[in-house]
């Protein structure tokens, strides 16, 4: 997802870009497929899907109470199914067709035209994202569009699934189905378009987001906070024991997230190359640093290094390195990791209790705060030669200018996703209501909503 956005950052680059585009078309002919790149992207797609089912499902399922485990697993599983259909029908089109700078159009409605270059069972040319737009350099890949569409679909799936943690234990299942359908179409697709379509305004603004720090994590994190605020606290919050029922599920889930994240970050190079290699390296390093950061912070502040703390820190590190992977060097990734671990520890343990909202599984504290830490530090530590392309040989080195651009992207996402989520929650509330009744909540969602129990 990176090559395209290093395009129109500065006006000075535009002439260069304009010169480059026709040259590509004239000399090289139709872009060629690369079997190595395609193989890596097929594998990455499967890895990112594994992050949601079973990774995130187990991570969240392990942290809720015994009576809500199945319901939480079900939410992640069904979001996977719903978003797959939504993405196929219109989501992909709204995110990755030219449209305008804020949202795509419906030219890929029902994936219409995705088979245009297929002959004798194979694509005859690689996918070019947004070719032929005036003043915008298209993103040329070396993989078929089907693979690109599928890879992006797995991102579209995990983003709404992340929100589940904020309203765990209390949302109606019917409300979840409606809300997630609307959210995927009206919030996720446009925000993805801003950043990852070369004509999107964030891309044009020169923002750096390698694998989804703003698009995925800030987006889902602020939506989670809005859900927690609108739905209100769980019955008994603050008085009753809401300890996780099975933290070993959560450890398995976090570990699957870690492994799957190599597809998320290294896969975002959309190629099997050096940038993917660096993305993988900094992902591993930042994650370890963040897990240790949270662990030591907790050890010092609370007296014990907890298992839940270590895995939460690892996830915070994965979140924070997401926008930076592919742009930063290993040394910087340690700083990003430690910062994410310590700051997210503070957000999840202190800020939440200070303000009293019940973000049950810390979607805001880990994903939104971690995403912001990562997005801003990307603007500080970005290493020019890594982000450089033929079109912008200097890349986007970190500095005050880049940091300011990153701030704009963060604020825009917070505002759009925050306000949009509020509106969608109100619509859902009018249609079917948001919360189960108090008695149903005490009984547990597994039995009341699904008629099943884990044992």
């Amino acid at each position, binding site marked *: 997802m990176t090559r395209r956005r290093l395009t129109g950052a500065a006006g000075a680059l535009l002439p260069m870009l304009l010169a480059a585009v026709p040259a590509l078309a004239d000399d090289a002919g139709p872009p060629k497929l690369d079997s190595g790149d395609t193989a890596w992207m097929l594998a990455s797609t499967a890895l990112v899907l594994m992050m949601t089912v079973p990774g995130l499902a187990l991570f969240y399922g392990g942290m809720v109470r015994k009576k809500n485990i199945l319901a939480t697993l079900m939410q992640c599983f069904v979001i996977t199914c719903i978003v797959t259909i939504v993405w196929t029908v219109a989501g992909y089109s709204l995110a990755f067709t030219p449209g305008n700078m804020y949202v795509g159009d419906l030219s890929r409605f029902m994936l219409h035209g995705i088979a245009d270059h297929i002959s004798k069972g194979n694509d005859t040319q690689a996918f070019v994202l947004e070719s032929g737009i005036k003043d915008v350099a298209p993103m040329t890949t070396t993989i078929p569009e089907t693979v690109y569409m599928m890879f992006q679909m797995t991102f579209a799936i995990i983003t709404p699934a992340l929100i589940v943690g904020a309203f765990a234990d209390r949302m109606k299942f019917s409300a979840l189905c409606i809300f997630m359908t609307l959210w995927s179409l009206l919030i996720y697709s446009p925000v993805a378009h801003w950043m990852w379509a070369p004509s999107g305004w964030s891309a044009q603004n020169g923002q750096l987001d390698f694998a989804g720090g703003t698009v995925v994590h800030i987006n889902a994190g602020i939506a989670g906070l809005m859900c927690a605020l609108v739905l209100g606290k769980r019955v008994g919050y603050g008085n009753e024991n*809401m*300890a*996780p029922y099975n933290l070993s599920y959560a450890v398995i889930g976090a570990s699957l997230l870690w492994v799957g994240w190599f597809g998320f970050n290294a896969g975002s190079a959309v190629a099997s190359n050096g940038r993917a290699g660096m993305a993988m390296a900094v992902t591993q390093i930042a994650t370890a640093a963040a897990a240790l950061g949270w662990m030591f912070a907790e050890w010092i502040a*609370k007296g*014990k290094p907890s298992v*839940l703390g270590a895995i939460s820190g690892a996830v915070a590190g994965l979140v924070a390195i997401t926008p930076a992977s592919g742009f930063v060097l290993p040394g910087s990734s340690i700083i990003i990791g430690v910062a994410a671990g310590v700051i997210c520890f503070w957000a*999840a343990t202190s800020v*939440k*209790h200070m303000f009293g909202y019940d973000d049950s599984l*810390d979607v805001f504290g880990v994903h939104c705060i971690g995403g912001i830490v990562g997005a801003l530090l990307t603007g500080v530590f970005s290493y020019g030669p890594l982000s450089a392309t033929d079109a912008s040989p200097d890349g986007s080195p970190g500095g005050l200018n880049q940091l300011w651009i990153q701030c704009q992207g963060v604020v825009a996402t917070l505002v759009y996703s925050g306000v949009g989520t509020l509106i969608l929650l109100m619509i859902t509330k009018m249609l079917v209501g948001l919360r189960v009744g108090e008695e149903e909540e005490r009984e547990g969602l597994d039995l009341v909503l699904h008629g099943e129990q884990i044992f």
Partner: protein
Amino acid sequence: MKLIIAIIKPFKLDDVREALTPLGVQGLTVSEVKGFGRQKGQTEIYRGAEYHVNFLPKVKIEVVVPADLTDQVIEAITKSAHTGKIGDGKIFVMDIERAVRIRTGEVDAAAL
């Protein structure tokens, strides 16, 4: 006949069983239970949320013995389950009216 009920720390169960066998105790019943005494509970912390857990896991042993063995059994349990720290548990003794071995129909002392 006496029923001796002992609530002990779970990891002391094997020590207690080994201490009772030489006395001629032929069988006993064990359950995993939860409860609190002077030890009260313990505190668990999950991402800064503190929960006071009031009921701690314990093991309950029930053993029926001839009345003349009672003191020896109590002494054996007291010694083998002892750590000296809070939470070691308690022993209760009750009278038993009858005992029957289901397989043979034997009653009272012969049934133990």
